[in-house]
């Protein structure tokens, strides 16, 4: 089943951020949540991952771990790549002591190979480029074999080539882990290259739900304005 969100509502200081949002993502599928800045995209991820409490609604998952890749990687800058990736295996109450140092080394090497960064275990985040940091954060996210992976603007701040690489790795991780994935983005290239379905938010409401092809074809004022990146239209920037 992956993940199903039903009638999700979230308010901050009486301001409605999400109003009756529902969607479903199956295992092995990627949903892109798109919309302007401040439309509540990242709030959806924080609610699913448990960083925020919902006001009402329901979030149903298949069980298992939920992993999240943060907008600016959020690697622990005092730890090297090995400790960053193996953090959950070393520090989580239910996993602590379960793996020997040798096993940890093998798991970390496997995950690094999956994101194309073998042999950088001893480097610190400050020694890596933005794209490499992002891929290390992918490796950290999948170390516990999660059933759901959440990506918060994974290509933000990256050059076009690094962005394409990251998009390819999102698809690769989906194929390798068969996890249900949600990618928050406002880049059309990310949507086209990664998404199986798209949900567009505006002012806390879902204004479009469909495939990337439908998003490009759809003639509603919201989708036209987003696809054409037009200033004039029903969606006003705050």
């Amino acid at each position, binding site marked *: 089943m992956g993940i199903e969100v039903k009638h999700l509502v979230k308010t901050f200081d009486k301001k409605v951020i999400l109003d009756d949002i529902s969607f479903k993502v199956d295992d092995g599928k990627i949903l892109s949540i798109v919309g302007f800045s401040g439309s509540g995209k990242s709030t959806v991820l*924080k609610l699913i991952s448990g960083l925020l409490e919902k006001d009402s609604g329901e979030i149903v998952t298949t069980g298992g*771990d*939920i992993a999240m890749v943060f907008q600016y990687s959020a690697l622990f800058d005092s730890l090297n790549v090995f400790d960053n990736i193996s953090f959950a295996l070393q520090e989580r*109450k239910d996993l602590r002591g379960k793996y020997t140092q040798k096993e940890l080394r093998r798991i970390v090497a496997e995950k690094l190979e999956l994101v194309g960064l073998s042999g950088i275990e001893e480097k610190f985040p400050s020694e890596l480029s933005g794209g490499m940091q992002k891929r290390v954060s992918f490796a950290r996210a999948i170390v516990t074999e999660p059933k759901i992976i959440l990506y918060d603007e994974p290509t933000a701040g990256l050059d076009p080539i690094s962005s394409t690489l990251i998009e390819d790795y999102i698809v690769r991780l989906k194929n390798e882990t068969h996890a249900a994935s949600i990618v928050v983005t406002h880049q059309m290239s990310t949507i086209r290259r990664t998404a199986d379905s798209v949900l567009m938010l505006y002012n806390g409401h879902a204004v479009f739900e469909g495939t990337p092809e439908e998003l490009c074809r759809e003639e509603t004022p919201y989708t036209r304005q987003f696809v054409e990146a037009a200033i004039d239209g029903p969606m006003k920037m705050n």
Partner: protein
Amino acid sequence: MKIYYKATYTYKIFRAFQAEFESFVSTLGRIVGYGLEFFCGLKNFPTTVKEILFQCARFGVSSLPITLSIVGMTSVIVAMQVAGEMVKQGGGNYVGMLVSILMVREEGVIMSGFAIISMIGSSLASEIATMRVTEQIDAIQVLHVNPVHYLFTPRVIAGTIMMPLVVVISSAVGILGGAIASNLVSGLSYKAFFDSVWFGLNMHDLNVCIMKAISFGFVITLISCSCGMAAKDGAKGVGLATTKAVVWSFVAIVILDLIFAAACFY
């Protein structure tokens, strides 16, 4: 119209006080909450000894030079001010007692506390605040690790262990500095000074000094970590969290000092 402006002005002042009071209560509540969570986490003792030792080294090594300098100089200043006068008045035999009691009961521990707040407390608060605003603490939570247990436990344990050591060493250096200054300023012999120290100091003073140091170490690290944890709004938030940690720690140890003075010496 004039009355209207006065009312608005008064209302604004009232609202400002109300906001400050609310901030005070919420900060206090947060510190107490984190303190309770810290104690709950202790039963699992999730932190490795290696991390505690690393924090102990950071606490002791980085704070000792500045703490010794401050406490040593304070002691020298006190000795310079009083030794000459006391020797002139025939009270030379009491100089060592005065300096040592001042060092062990008050100056050693409170000055070390101030130095630790400036060096370690501010560093802890800004470190954790930076982790908060760069989503590193969110990442810890998403990985199903309790950030209070992971971040607070080694730091608070290290502070509680290391503070008494720093205080004992700095107080000893303070007494030594007082002896040297007394000798240079008024010609008071070292023997007379230290005879007076043994006469004046007792185990009760030393016990209270260590108890104070333990509580100061605990409170400073807990407040600093708590203020860092509550940071928000980017770089400005890190600065505000650090300032709050320093101010709250200063006030807390002065209040604690007052409580110890009232409870242990009167």
